[in-house]
């Protein structure tokens, strides 16, 4: 009996190892594909990058100036040469320089990233600490007035656009109640409103997810069995909650990159100096090196988070690694 379990464990370990290797190997072509996509996207976009680089510095784009800038930016070289050169530089952390201020794109990101990570981390805390208790309570008191109220809230929170919610929150909590500054990140409590705005849609999603999973689990045989055994309701709910968490954790894993990439609008409304704002101003100025770097970095973030979530799911549920 003991030998059989050992064999099973070994087999499971081998499956898991193969699965991980396969998934990690897949990343490489995926990243090359993404980098190519990010590069092509800019090449296909209307407007000559050389002209843009001139115009953002208020230089009149005369044919001579354009030719000189094309040479400086290496745009006179064939497409694939440019792509390979760019890719090799990117691998070494060199994303080129911004057209607007000539600063290193990498440096610009490093400067802006902490603000976005801070915002996303606080938003994540809001998501966990608000959606879990409310989700559980809704499942426990299914059909109650509170549950109905929360369902209406979920509907509204998912339907309302982020920028509008942001402005409403500023109006209420900042202008009317005077609890928070309207924007910026100079005061200690500045993060509350932008993080809550960013978290709101996710809070609604996770309340629904936890509530529905728990309600489904309530119908399972093990619950009936536990009730028959006369277990206390609180213990039963603890089991139901634990069993409902798997799916939530997977979704949460994928929400992290979404939070970071999705902070664009919130950062603009709340004057938050993160990568989202960097990207928006780059789009308006057509600062192509920054846009390229943003697309690439966000794609890498998604791929990595996806990988981590997949591996975690596989380790929690062995059926995934065996199928995969």
């Amino acid at each position, binding site marked *: 009996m003991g030998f059989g379990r050992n064999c099973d464990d070994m087999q499971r370990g081998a499956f898991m190892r193969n699965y991980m290797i396969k998934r990690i190997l897949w990343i490489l072509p995926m990243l090359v594909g993404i980098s190519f996509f990010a590069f092509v996207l800019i090449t296909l976009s209307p*407007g000559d990058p050389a002209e843009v680089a001139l115009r953002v510095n208020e230089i*009149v784009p005369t044919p001579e100036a354009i030719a000189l800038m094309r040479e400086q930016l290496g745009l006179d070289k064939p497409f694939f040469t440019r792509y390979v050169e760019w890719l090799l530089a990117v691998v070494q952390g060199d994303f080129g320089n911004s057209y607007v201020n000539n600063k290193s794109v990498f440096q610009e990101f490093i400067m802006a990233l902490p603000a976005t990570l801070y915002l996303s981390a606080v938003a994540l805390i809001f998501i966990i600490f608000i959606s879990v208790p409310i989700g559980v309570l809704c499942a426990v008191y299914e059909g109650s007035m509170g549950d109905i109220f929360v369902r209406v809230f979920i509907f509204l929170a998912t339907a309302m656009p982020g920028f509008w919610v942001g402005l409403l929150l500023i109006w209420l909590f900042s202008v009317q109640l*005077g609890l*928070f500054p309207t924007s910026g990140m100079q005061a200690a409590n*500045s993060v509350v409103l932008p993080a809550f705005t960013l978290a709101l849609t996710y809070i609604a999603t996770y309340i629904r997810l936890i509530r529905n999973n728990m309600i489904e689990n309530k119908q399972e045989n093990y619950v009936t069995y536990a009730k028959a055994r006369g277990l206390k309701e609180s213990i039963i709910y603890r089991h139901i909650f634990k069993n409902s968490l798997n799916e939530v954790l997977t979704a949460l894993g994928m929400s992290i990159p979404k939070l970071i990439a999705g902070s664009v609008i919130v950062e603009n409304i709340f*004057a938050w*100096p993160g990568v989202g704002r960097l990207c928006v101003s780059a789009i*308006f*100025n057509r600062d192509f090196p920054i846009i390229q770097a943003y697309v690439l970095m966000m794609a890498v973030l998604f791929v990595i988070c996806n990988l981590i979530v997949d591996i975690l799911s596989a380790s929690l549920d062995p059926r995934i690694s065996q199928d995969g």
Partner: protein
Amino acid sequence: MKIRSVVFCVILLCLTFAVCGCGSENDRLSKNELVYASTKDIRDINPHLYGGEMAAQAMVFEPLVYDTKDGIKPGLAESWGVSADGLSYTFHIRQGVKFTDGEDVNAEAIKLNIDAVCKNKERHAWLDMVNQIDHGEVMDAYTYRLVLKKPYYPTLKELALSRPFRMISPKCFKDGDTKNGVNGYAGTGPYILTEHKDKQYAIFTKNKDYWGDQAKFETIKWQVMPDPQTILLALKKGEIDLLFGADGDMVDLDSFTALQKEGKYAAMLSEPVASRAILINAHRPITSDRQVREAFQYVVNKEGIANGVLNGTETVADTLLSPTVPYCNVPLKARNYDLDKAKQLLNVAGWSMNEDGYRYKNGKKMVVTLYFNSNNAQERTISEYIQSDMKAAGVELKIIGEEKQAFLDRQKNGDFDLQYSLSWGTPYDPQSYLSSWRIPAHGDYQAQLGLEKKKWLDDEIGLTLVEPDKDKRQLRYNEILTYIHHECVYLPLTYSRTKAVYMPKLKGVGFNLSQYEIPFEKMYFEK
């Protein structure tokens, strides 16, 4: 018990947040600090380049002379003289003035600055002045002579602009130059940039050694808020004291009127500073016909735009440049809204009305496209207004909003029938604005390409700028403006104004000649 402690914690947390809140009005009064909100960061304020905000550049760096409503006034040059042939300008530099890094302001420093600008000609192609400078000479420690190739008449006006002819300490130069950036921002102006947090805020501190009237505020905080709605909310909360801007980039007209009506804030409008117009491309199939362009002048109800869309804050423009602009008080016939006349002109031009309510010529429908900058809500509303006016005359007007760079691309390529256009405003009008008509990258040039006398127009502008005799210069301006008016390449709409909204306790708010400068040094809080 548990619930009680949770409630207690929440209340405690709220109170902590409230206490942590950002600087209150009282804080600012005691610190004597003005908070100004802008959608843009000040960025690199190197006065010889264009990467920074003009208002910030003008706070720190000064020109040789100032351009004011009362004419040219002394700046770093105490006095000056112009040679009889208009080719050389001798400036007597104010003695005892120092850059904020301790360097002396003398003829040598002025020469280094003007030379640094001239070494970077391609960046200043829009400004004819740079091409007109032959060389500069240091006559003695405090006398500098500027020698021109031709008697370029707007010399003093262009030396006074917010950039590029402003003076920075030669110690800040990088390898003897400024075109690749500077090491610091030591100027001579009323304020010193003492702190700059990229994309967040900048602090300007009063220059206690300023040679002129001391600024009244100890510090000016330039707060960056990219979203105009957030700026309005911050004003309502009392976090900021001043909004200031032209053409809807800081505060749109609806909000401006609403704030005015609310009565809690003071609001001020400048004199007309620039011209809002629609550029009609004479180099496109339908609009190449002068009669069509003339008909369009009568189609649009400008009164409706000025009073309806712009809430009466702007006045109707009968001519491209306001008669209050220097050299522009030229007798030109106003073309007022007259739908019947427009229809008659279109009929004569061969565009006859069909049953579907649109005009056709040789089986081709009259469809023209108007492009505008999609970031500007005001331009969209005005475009929609024009669209309905055009429909009444049987013209199908398509309106397309594009992001700024795409809009500029279209300008450069001449790929438009109609395009939204704003003149450069004072003090650039008329000389720099007209000068830019000669540059192919500008929409004006592209739209004028279809004109029979385009070459004459360009040459005439060039000659006007170097005409030393004022009367002859006026005659040349008359000819240029009359020709442009006759050819109907522009459909003038209104004359725009700069807007300021501020807390009532803030006094001394006013406008400089340039709509891009903010006279912070004159502002103060009422005690």
